[in-house]
């Protein structure tokens, strides 16, 4: 059984209140959920809450997972991304921070940055910045246009191009 099939089977078991199935998914995906939440929120406590909320959401909504719309891994990250952005928007740190909210190098955060840098190395610096602002800080297209001083059409086309490059690298 492939990992996706196994995850789908686990989600089905979670829908029937199988705690061990949820904990299995937790052990597999909590580090990525944690990484995403930390990257967005830059706060360990908030990130922990997002990790727990994400898996509680899965516990309560597992039957809503639709394999026709994506893999379990991306579904789980989508839940975590949404929860983390909601917290970010509710917090005072969601301001016009042109330079993002990078933490100083060192420790886990340094490792996170290296990881992200590796995935992003296929991109031009401006595309990288654009993706970081959009995905990790939740800026809309029009906010990005305002922030970066680019026409809206340029923001859209560069975002699409950046995603296509990443996609190409994955293949």
């Amino acid at each position, binding site marked *: 059984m492939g990992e996706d099939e196994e995850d789908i089977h686990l989600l089905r078991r979670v829908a029937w209140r199988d705690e061990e199935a*949820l904990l299995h998914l937790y052990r597999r995906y909590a580090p990525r959920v944690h990484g995403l939440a930390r990257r967005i929120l830059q706060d360990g406590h908030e990130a922990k809450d997002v*990790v727990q909320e994400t898996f509680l959401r899965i516990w309560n909504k597992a039957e809503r997972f639709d394999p026709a719309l994506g893999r379990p891994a991306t579904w789980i990250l989508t839940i975590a991304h949404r929860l983390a952005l909601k917290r970010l928007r509710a917090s005072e740190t969601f301001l016009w921070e042109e330079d993002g909210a990078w933490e100083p190098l060192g420790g886990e955060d340094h490792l996170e940055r290296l990881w992200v840098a590796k995935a992003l190395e296929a991109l031009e610096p401006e595309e990288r910045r654009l993706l970081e602002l959009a995905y990790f800080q939740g800026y809309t297209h029009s906010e990005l246009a305002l922030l970066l001083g680019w026409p809206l059409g340029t923001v859209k086309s560069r975002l699409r191009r950046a995603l296509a490059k990443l996609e190409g690298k994955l293949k």
Partner: protein
Amino acid sequence: MTHPDPDDLVRLALDLLPEGERRGLMAHLRSCPSCRAAYQAYLEALSALVPEVPVPASWEGELRERLRTRPLWERRRVLALGLSLGFVGALFLGGLGGLRWWAGISARRRFFDLAAEPGARLMPLLDPGGRQTGWALRTAQGEVLLLLKSPPPPGRVYQAWLILDGQRKSLGLSPTPLLEVGPLPEESLVGVSVEPPGGSPAPTTPSVGRTRI
């Protein structure tokens, strides 16, 4: 088929769309393999940006504790209790017959308004004897609603169930003939039973309607 703006698929993957637009696009994706493939590719690309950061071992125990403190059907009991209290209060104000009539009319109107929208799909709800007892509706946005022809007996509620692998999972309660069960994967098998106001962890009466939608 009209396809959405490709930038909206990017916005969907980045979770930057308002809820209404998001649901509309998700509905389109369910019926459009090419847009679905583009959306999935964006999600995969974005997920490649996500770093892994180990979690402390104690978090798993905390999660396990939280799972055990509030089982889902107990929370639905709280919702059902709220609904029941609201229902009883309204009974006090409006009288049993008037309220039941009003609730039934409102539920039907909402259901058939949604059924008339483009892309909506209706299926009959059948009891074990094959008689039609209501309708199941899948909206273009993938939401599933169930409407029974008659309201539940006095002092009882309808409870919707997802039937999967021979087991049943509660999808919610309603003191009216309308059950809004939310988004479900295509071809989900759903059923309805009559239960006491707090709902039940498993059906206690035979199904009053069932269908695959």
